[in-house]
């Protein structure tokens, strides 16, 4: 199971980084989503991998660490909200400039931005 989870994190991170480097808003946002999936699984494993154990302290000898689960929940909510924001801003920029490149095309000497 360790190999499966570790390779999942690795593949997601690699794919995410590749997409981020495409420098077009849609692939970049997809890439960032993949990266957040990777980091969510990574956070989850930071409390050690345990199967079918309760996430509370009982008399049983094994238990799952509940803190990473709470951290992951927070991270999921935040990344979800952030992705929504970046989609809206990217859409606005794309519709305004008719171009979805992330980097500067040319020095912005086209005039004032106001």
């Amino acid at each position, binding site marked *: 199971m360790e190999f499966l989870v570790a390779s999942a994190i690795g593949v997601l991170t690699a794919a995410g980084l590749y997409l981020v480097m495409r420098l077009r808003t849609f692939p970049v946002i997809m890439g*960032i989503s993949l990266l957040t999936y990777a980091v969510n699984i*990574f956070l989850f494993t930071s*409390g050690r991998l345990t199967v079918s154990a309760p996430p509370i302290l009982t008399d049983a000898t094994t238990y799952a660490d509940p803190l990473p689960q709470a951290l992951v929940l927070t991270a999921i909510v935040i990344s979800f909200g*952030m992705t929504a924001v970046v989609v809206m*801003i*990217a859409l606005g*920029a794309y519709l305004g400039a008719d171009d979805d490149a992330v980097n500067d095309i040319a020095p912005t000497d086209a*005039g*004032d*931005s106001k």
Partner: protein
Amino acid sequence: MTHWIILPVILPAILAPFIVLAARYHIGIQRVLSVAGVIGLIAVAAGLAWATSDGTVLLYQLGDWAAPFGIVVVGDRLSTLMVLLTAVLGLFVLLYAIGSGWDDRGKHFHALFQFQLMGIMGAFLTGDLFNLFVFFEVLLIASYGLMIHSGGTVRLKAGVQYVLFNLLGSTLFLFALGSIYAETGTLNMADLAQRVALVSPEETVGIRIAAVLLLLVFAIKAALVPLHFWLPSSYAEAPAPVAALFAIMTKVGAYAIIRVYTMVFGPEVEVTAGLHGAWLLPAALVSLALGMIGVLAAKKLDRLITFAVIGSMGMVMIAISLFTPEATSAAVYYIVHSTLAAAALFLISDLVRTGRTNLDLTDQPSIGGAHLTAGLFFIAAIAMTGLPPLSGFLGKLLILHSAIEQSTMVWVWAVILTSSLVAVVGFGRAGSTVFWKAKSIERPADAKAPQTPTAMSYIAVCGLLALLVAHTVFAGPMTRYTNAIAAQLYAPDAYISTVLDTPGKLSDAKADDKKGEDH
């Protein structure tokens, strides 16, 4: 247990939704509420700074849960000073935004402004790394809204870059937190400080990776070269009052580095010894050099100021990376100075823009209110480049003095002194182009007379510059206070024992168990 310390977070958090829900169609009411809120914040922050000035560490346990399990808010000398600085900066920026009418050029400026303050205050006060992440996100999401305030294609495009860069930074932050938790089983800073010290020297791989990842994250926030690429475009394209408020945001990164790398991964901790110092100082020196070269090379006034911000962050990081009490004291003095100076410069660039079609450093007819604006620019440029008699000079002197016994002294002195000269030339060229050459350019006969900025805009800028003067005049008491801050930072036992030994719920049951509760 005093409840006051949570108020800098709660007050904007309540005020912002109230502004959105109750006053969304009335800019006048929004302005009154927002200014009243910030004045209240200053009062609370001043009270907190007074309460911690004798070395007391204020602790607030949310829901009365004891420290390693529950969430804590901690105020010591450094964090309350930063909170006070944020509140005071917030007031002048807000006055400028109202005076110049920026807040009325888009929706929800005041609500987002309050949320931004909430995030910054929380980041300074939290005693927990995960909550540091949460408050970073709060301040970032508010800053996304402020950054694209009043819209425009160029601004939106810069906004996309800014948001994407920070999203990647947040992901990296989570990776760092995950590795720290996997290694130590806690994210409370005081608890971490104890547990990192217990890590055996043979098993340092994980904790070293975590320490470096965390440093990278904070370096992104602090815009340290080579992680500074997000800053110039976004600060230059953001509305000027927003950019002025953002002057404190890079300092959040600097604050986090000071906090974590004096307490948790301190210079004396064996497993990570020398790790950050070896990387931080060269990066800081390059930041300072590159920032000031950028000042010389900039073709627009707002870009020039953004590179000055990068350079001044480099100066702050040089002092931090020396990791001695004397250098940290100098760093805190310089942080206060450079926040005020950068904010004033951003506001002045907007004063210039009011009377000009753009901020290009080319010969154009003179602007409205040119004499006063030119005078203010002169003062702010003196402060930023670190010429006597203002606090930039004193801060630089303190940093140079703190480096004098270090083995890296030659590099520090050479880079700081050379880059200061470059910055003086850069600012001198910009000022003479914008203000002096304008005298000889005839205004086209059919052109309207240029707009003059409102009195309130000038009051806000003069207020910031007056604070800089006060920071210079009261440099004696101020350096005594920053020395006290540094002393407290390098003796974190009082902080740790206050956080961990204050009783609360759960404190008697299984206190040494690793399992955490609510987050």
